[in-house]
């Protein structure tokens, strides 16, 4: 039924497209993962201060970004932010052009989307902190800050790690949507290739395999990190 023809892989143009595509996918995923994790940590940290106006802003940010499609967020950033004034003058042609390239738009959208999810994850890690641990810290005379840094943050990080793994692998998968705003990543070049050689099925299968492999490597590394950070008798990784 399926007779798959992969002879097109011999074409050097396609080969270089695939390589560039994978490199750009990795770049986009790495940048947005790191940024999302940082946003998540800072956001959750800010929430522990319990400053009402700051918390309201963070909550708004989280809800807006996690309740709208990242695809739409990227399109919005790409097509409308420059209309709203984010422009620079191109020194080459003297014309004004958008400040943010397609790649920047995708990276920023994905970071914010992932960051919103990460804030939630870290926040819930801090919230599920056993009351007993907090009391022990209090009883030993820790100040609120010292208690947070020395005791709660390390434990919360550990508790949040599985959720973070989910978010980062989700983010990695979402990078494929950046093809829609012409970021030259894997999915974009996949489109270029099958529009050229019409071997859609073969191209899609290859792309699927590449993505699954890359995401599996990511989740494997995160699982290693979980195990490395584990302390006996706590969480799943220990047992």
């Amino acid at each position, binding site marked *: 039924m399926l007779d798959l023809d992969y002879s097109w892989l011999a074409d050097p*143009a396609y080969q270089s497209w695939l390589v560039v595509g994978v490199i750009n996918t990795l770049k986009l995923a790495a940048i947005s993962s790191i940024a999302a994790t940082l946003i998540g940590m800072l956001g959750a940290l800010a929430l522990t201060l319990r400053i009402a106006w700051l918390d309201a802003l963070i909550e708004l940010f989280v809800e807006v970004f996690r309740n709208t499609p990242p695809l739409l967020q990227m399109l919005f950033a790409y097509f409308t932010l420059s209309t709203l004034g984010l422009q620079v003058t191109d020194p080459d042609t003297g014309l004004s052009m958008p400040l943010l390239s397609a790649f920047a738009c995708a990276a920023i959208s994905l970071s914010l989307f992932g960051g919103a999810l990460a804030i939630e994850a870290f926040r819930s890690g801090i919230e599920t902190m056993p009351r007993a641990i907090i009391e022990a810290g209090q009883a030993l005379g820790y100040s609120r800050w010292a208690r947070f840094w020395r005791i709660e943050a390390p434990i919360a990080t550990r508790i949040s790690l599985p959720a973070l793994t989910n978010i980062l692998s989700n983010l990695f998968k979402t990078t494929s949507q950046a093809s829609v705003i012409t970021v030259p990543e894997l999915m974009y070049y996949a489109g270029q290739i099958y*529009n*050229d050689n019409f071997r*859609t099925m073969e191209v899609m299968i290859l792309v699927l395999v590449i993505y699954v492999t890359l995401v599996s490597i990511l989740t494997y590394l995160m699982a290693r990190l979980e195990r490395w950070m584990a302390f006996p008798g706590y969480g799943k990784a220990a047992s």
Partner: protein
Amino acid sequence: DTLDTIKERDKLVVGVKTDYAPYGYLNDDGEIVGFEIELAKYVAKELLGSEEKIELVPVVASNRIDFLASGRLDVIFATLGISAARDEVIDFTTQYVSAAGPSILAPEASKLTEWEQYEGRPVCGIQGSYFNKKMTEEFGMNLIAFKSQTEAYRALKDNRCVGMVFDDMTLRLKTLEPEWTDYKIAAQPYEFAPMGGGVREGDTVLKEAIDKAIHKAEGEGKLIEWEAEFNMPASEYIAERAKTAGAE
């Protein structure tokens, strides 16, 4: 085969453009209209007896062939340029338009008037255009390919690219629009490309039935009428075809 299926279901499923005036686009009421839409309706009438027995499925360049191949569509009338590579995966109907190949739309001030000058520069384009690989491989452009024309025009206006490469006629019509008066055709087309409908590889019976319908339309001068209706410049090619078809 497909023709039987069409008759059985009593409806022709056609893939058309919705963002490609004058061939297929949405009017202010949100209806799909255009040169190729009229053609498709005509074909439906010929095959099934009524213009109404038709389902218009919006497609873009990058998905039209897949939709056809996977059985979603019976036929496409979607500004499909005839090329050897495509002929390997689908069958073309008789061609009904011969348009100039790609040209480049750029701001009035642009000094890039030769194709070779675009090497290494960002140029907007559309995913699924038959000349895309030539642009990157031969001219060395940094092609930024969008899914739809709307997006590509938008990106050109934003100066995300120094020009937009696309079918000459469409771009020429664009320069006539009030918002596009300070744009010009910077690089001229280097070839002419005929356009035809597409059916699945091996759908010979359907292809012949459609060909017959198109010839009939040409003979009745319908295509010239539609040209006028949708403000297309009168093309010699269509007039020529109408003459030969009428003579038969």
